[in-house]
């Protein structure tokens, strides 16, 4: 499985439609403080099914929708699509390319798609189970969070290893 493309519209500070293409190897995202780098990581986390607003630095899930600036009005919804190369069929579907899409409206309504077929959030979460990506595993480390691996609570540390093992 490989990341191919991330598309965002209305997600946090990405008010205009944005597309980022990924290649094999190492992609570095750079820019000034507050420019939106961590928001890119949040978008990936969110489209993979993150349900905790706190994990996305918000208080409620609505916080991830572009809230406007002094020059622009807020938007009514946020949408993120992640396209993956599935040639190795790590994702348990027939497609060699998989696009997952998540949309959230200010009304609170949500929409989810796998290759343009409407689905539920749990379908997306289950799709990635056992692939090492998403909530289980260590594939996404947020800013300021790396030292938590050394957590002073041996009990917490145990859980870490239970997930890994």
């Amino acid at each position, binding site marked *: *499985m*490989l*990341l191919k493309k991330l598309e965002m519209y209305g997600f946090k*500070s*990405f*008010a*205009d439609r*944005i597309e*980022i293409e*990924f*290649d*094999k*190897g*190492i*992609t*570095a*995202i*750079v*820019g*000034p403080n*507050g*420019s*939106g*780098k*961590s*928001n*890119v*990581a949040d978008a*990936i986390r969110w489209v993979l099914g993150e349900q905790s607003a706190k994990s996305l630095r918000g208080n409620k899930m609505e916080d991830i929708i572009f809230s*406007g*600036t*002094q*020059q*622009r009005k807020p938007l009514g919804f946020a949408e993120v699509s992640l396209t993956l190369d599935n040639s190795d069929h*790590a994702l348990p579907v027939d497609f060699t390319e998989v696009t997952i899409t998540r949309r959230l409206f200010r009304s609170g309504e949500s929409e989810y798609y796998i290759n343009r077929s409407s689905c539920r959030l749990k379908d997306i979460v289950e799709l990635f189970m056992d*692939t*090492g*990506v998403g909530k289980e*595993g*260590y*594939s*996404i*480390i*947020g*800013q*300021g969070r*790396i*030292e*938590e*691996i*050394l957590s002073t*609570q*041996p*009990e917490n*540390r*145990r859980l*870490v*290893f239970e997930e*890994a*093992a």
Partner: protein
Amino acid sequence: MEKKFKEEFGIINKHFSRVFAQLFGGGRAELVLEDPDNVLTSGIEIVAQPPGKKLQSISLLSGGEKALTAISILFAILEHKPAPFCVLDEIDAALDESNVQSFGKYLRKFSEKTQFVLITHRRGTMESSDVLYGVAMEEKGVSRMVSVRLEDDIAS
């Protein structure tokens, strides 16, 4: 169940010792089960000794040493349970220039089997990367992607 945990624990431990020594250029580290007779409920102690130093509690390690130790554990876990891709947000923040280089070198090797997306301010990490994407906010509060090159004033 217990047997399986002990096996996996042993494997991750081997990886941790190896990665630590590689990133620190020596020294030793290991994970220790606090209660070996009750493996499934035992806490796990982290023991880390940078090269030439004496074994002490990890609380006494420096900020950069702690970060590099945590990175070693992360890679140990990923060696054992690979993820197809990994998104790392500024995990190199506390590292000095020399450790940023070791980290970058290790990532390049690892990236043969894992795809990485790194958010970073560090020049050394940018130099270890294959592609750079810039995020800019020329219009205040609105992010957009821009092309960047290493020569631009983007790194610290």
